[in-house]
C-alpha cells in the first residue's frame, strides 16, 4: 500500500469528504504531505471500488466517505507490516 493510500484510509476512520481528508493528512504529517485534488479524487474512487471505503452521504454535491470493516482490516495489516519494518529500521539508527 502506498503512503498516500495509507493516510487516506487512516483519515477515513472518521467520516470526511475529499477536502477534509487532505486537511487531516496535512495536519497528521505536519505539512509534509499535502494531497492534491486529483490524487484525493482518484484515490477515493479506487478505495471505494475495492470496497475499502464507502459513501455515507452526499450533501451539496460533496460526498462523505468512511472506512469499511474490510478497509479497517487492510489498514491494520499494513500497520503491522510498517511496525515490523520500523523495529528493524531502529537497529540501524
Amino acid at each position, binding site marked *: 500500500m502506498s503512503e498516500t493510500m495509507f493516510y487516506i484510509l487512516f483519515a477515513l476512520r472518521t467520516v470526511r469528504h475529499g477536502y477534509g481528508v487532505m486537511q487531516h493528512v496535512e495536519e497528521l504529517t505536519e505539512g509534509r504531505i499535502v494531497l492534491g*485534488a486529483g490524487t484525493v479524487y482518484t484515490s477515493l474512487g479506487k478505495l471505494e471500488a475495492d470496497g475499502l471505503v464507502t459513501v455515507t452521504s452526499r450533501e451539496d454535491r460533496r460526498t462523505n466517505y468512511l472506512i469499511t470493516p474490510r478497509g479497517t482490516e487492510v489498514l491494520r495489516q499494513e500497520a503491522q507490516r510498517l511496525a515490523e519494518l520500523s523495529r528493524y529500521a531502529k537497529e540501524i539508527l
Partner: protein
Amino acid sequence: MSTTHAWFVPYRYPAPADLENWLEDHARRGQVLARVGQWSVFRMTFQDGGPATHRYVVDVQGRPRPDYLTTYQDFGWEHLGRTSNIHLWRRAYDGARPEAFTDADSLRARSRRSEIPIAVVAARRIWRQRDR
C-alpha cells in the same frame, strides 16, 4: 477586451503535461483561456490581458462521480469547462506551482485515462504521413 483563437490545440498537444505547459506559457504572455465548451476541442478562445501566473490541469474523465467538481473546487481550482471528455482546471498562484496529482499512482492513472485520446491523435498523424 480583445480575444484571439487557437485551433486544434488538444490535437497538437495530446499529452496533458504538454497542453498544460502550452496554456501556462500563453497566460504568462497575457493570453488567458476563456470558458471551455464542446467546440473548444477545435477552437480555443483566449482573452488578451496582462501576464498571469496560472496553473492549468488537464484531466480526462469519461463519467466522473458526483463529487468530481466539488472536490477540485474545494481545493481552489476553477473549472473552465469540458471539451470532449477533457476537463480543464485553472488556479492562479504565487510561489510554488500547485499540483493536482501529488503521487505516482494517481499520475499513472491520469496517464492511462489519456492513452486513448493520445493514441487517436497519433494514429491520425501516422495516417496523414502515409497519405503524403
